[in-house]
């Protein structure tokens, strides 16, 4: 059998017709816009949330395809910037909120202030999350949702130790943690590891005491670091806290090695799965009646400069997600608090475990409020001081004085 058809039966004009129709078909397929979203979400709940949103959005916008690309947490910023540098930017990057203004400085992010101004949810966004994405008049993204820190307590251990309510003040925290410590169980656990996690976990104590990372030689910084040092030196917190990231911290709590932990809402799912009986309460404050001030976590949908058609599709996607019902569903699957006040209120009313986080949202602060685009360097200096003090390498005063000296030129530069 000859594979090639005899030339007579397939004249040139027909071949041309076939070819051109194929090209037209390909062209039609190309008319579809692909919105690539880079992110580092890897918890099953979060992935389900993203998949749902993708399905809904693609159904409503058949000409736009969403493509999620996973990048490990540590590489997200550098990869985003790299992709932009070689003119293949993703449409959207889900950047951690303290990094947004820093990345914006490189000029890869699109100012979407005109689009967000029209969104009803933007007017209702808490000041903290708003601050983290705004530089002057410019807006570089819309928060996916927020998270922060609170105290998780093991109910059984607390009642066994005769404690009726989880600690509300620093004094109660110190006393309760000591009471709950019975070898091999520690009263409390937090993360003081050599990454951003330790600064982030210390900030609620520093800020609730009225302190600032930009003024580490002041009294609130000394008092709040002394609180941590005392907890560790009394043995209420394991010395290994300097090596534990937040995943390790949660494991300690879940496996019953610690009675209380400093943790955020994204761990709720995992703690629930363990079947542990626990409750969540706000961060203890220095004196009764004061308001806790916690740092804000959470990622931001940031649109990258590129093909105008893709940019428009990306903005469309973000607007789609800002629908308050969709936002509530997404934040609930993420175990995040919505950055939009009305949505967050609803979440808190429906779920008592989220309520402490919702209540803290009004006073919560964006981390770049201290140091702006230099926040990462400020944080590095602060966490070195934290580690030096709690490992006994330096006194609280000396460690903080050293860090304050490093931060001073950074704060001036902005």
């Amino acid at each position, binding site marked *: 059998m000859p594979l090639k058809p005899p030339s007579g039966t397939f004249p040139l004009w027909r071949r041309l017709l076939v070819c051109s129709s194929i090209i037209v078909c390909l062209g039609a397929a190309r008319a579809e816009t692909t919105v690539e979203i880079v992110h580092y979400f890897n918890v099953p709940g979060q992935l389900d949330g993203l998949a749902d949103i993708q399905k809904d959005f693609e159904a409503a916008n058949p000409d736009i395809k969403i493509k999620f690309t996973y990048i490990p947490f*540590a*590489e997200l*910023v*550098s990869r985003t*910037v*790299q992709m*932009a*540098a070689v003119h293949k930017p993703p449409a959207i990057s889900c950047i951690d909120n303290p990094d947004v203004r*820093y*990345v914006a*400085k*490189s*000029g*890869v992010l699109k100012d979407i202030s005109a689009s967000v101004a029209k969104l009803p949810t933007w007017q209702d966004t808490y000041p903290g999350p708003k601050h983290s994405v705004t530089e002057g008049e410019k807006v570089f993204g819309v928060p996916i949702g927020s998270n922060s820190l609170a105290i998780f307590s093991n109910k059984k251990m607390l009642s066994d130790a005769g404690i009726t309510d989880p600690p509300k003040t620093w004094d109660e925290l110190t006393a309760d943690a000591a009471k709950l410590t019975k*070898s*091999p169980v520690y009263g409390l656990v937090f993360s003081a*590891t*050599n*990454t*951003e996690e330790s600064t982030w976990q210390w900030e609620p104590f520093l800020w609730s005491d009225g302190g600032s990372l930009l003024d580490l030689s002041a009294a609130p910084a000394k008092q709040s670091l002394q609180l941590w040092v005392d907890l560790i030196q009394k043995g209420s917190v*394991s*010395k*290994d*806290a*300097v*090596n534990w*990231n937040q995943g390790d911290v949660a494991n300690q709590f879940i496996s019953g*090695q610690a009675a209380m932990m400093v943790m955020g809402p994204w761990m709720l799912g995992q703690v629930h799965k363990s079947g542990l009986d626990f409750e969540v309460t706000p961060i203890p404050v220095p004196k009764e009646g004061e308001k806790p001030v916690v740092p804000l976590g959470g990622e931001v949908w940031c649109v990258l400069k590129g093909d105008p058609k893709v940019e428009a599709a990306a903005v469309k996607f973000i607007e789609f997600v800002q629908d308050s019902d969709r936002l509530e569903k997404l934040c609930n699957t993420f175990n995040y608090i919505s950055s939009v006040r009305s949505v967050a209120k609803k979440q808190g009313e429906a779920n008592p475990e989220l309520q402490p986080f919702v209540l803290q949202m009004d006073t919560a602060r964006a981390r770049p409020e201290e140091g702006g685009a230099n926040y*990462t*360097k400020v944080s*590095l200096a602060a966490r*070195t001081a934290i*580690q*030096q003090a*709690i*490992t006994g*390498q330096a006194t609280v005063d000396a460690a903080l004085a050293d860090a304050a000296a490093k931060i001073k030129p950074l704060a001036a530069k902005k």
Partner: protein
Amino acid sequence: MRQLEAIRARGATAPEAGGRATPRRRAAWRTALSSYSFILPITIFGLFLLVYPVLYSLALSFRDATVETFVGGDMPFVGLSNYEQILASSTFWQALENTVVFTFCSILFQFAIGFLLALFFQNRFPLKNVLIALLLIPWIAPVLTAANTFKGLFNEVGPINQIAHLLGIPTVPWLASPGFALAATIVANIWIGFPFNFILLYSGVCNVPPEIYEAARIDGASYWRRVAHITLPILKPVTVAVLMLGTIYTVKVFDLVWIMTGGGPANTSHLLSTYAYQVGFSILNFGQAAAIATVIVALILSLNLFQLVLQRR
């Protein structure tokens, strides 16, 4: 070069079908071309994946490369400024010192343990091959697994401290104390690396002709004399290779320390590799990270040169 000339000469003298001068030269050229085409893949591979990144990293180390300057591509040339800033940071010197201590202690113990085991396995005994296979497990185990296991072992309330407590030895929070964190990572690295030393030295030991030992024994040489004057000298080439490879592997260790301590507490257990990673990916100062990487490359190259000289002698 000499080989190529030989090939060309062979091509020139080879019998040809045409018999005329031009085809002969063309055939020679073709032979040379096909010879070059054999080394083409490795040359391209080397240029793109080895030479280019190293040169790029070197170039980056002289530029102000941060997230801000990276995208515009206008990373300004800043001369030695990155190096000045690196050399002025106490963490860098701590990391350099740690790298030297880490490498020296790891290699010393890995080699000593590997060598003693190789000597032991010179004897014949039952289950010998099974034991050899078992000894290779640390080398096969993924570093991720090993590092997390050791992180657990060195935990403040982990097995090591529990045993010490039972024996009445005062315990330390290994990974949480500035004085012991590096030591703990060295212990873990020795465990990971000794099988590599052992297996190479063992194969070397197996190649020592038994007659030499026989003769020495007849002459009345004691066991350790035989080891010192027969085994060690014969093993010299293997030893140099083992030490060289071991040193290169150890200077660039990253994952183990990153997982066990993250360079902490308070930056006391940073190696140059983990410090470079922190500067590059956490502080996002690519220029300074490249400067540290250049120091690592220079360190490894100078060690290589030193060992090549040793090998020549």
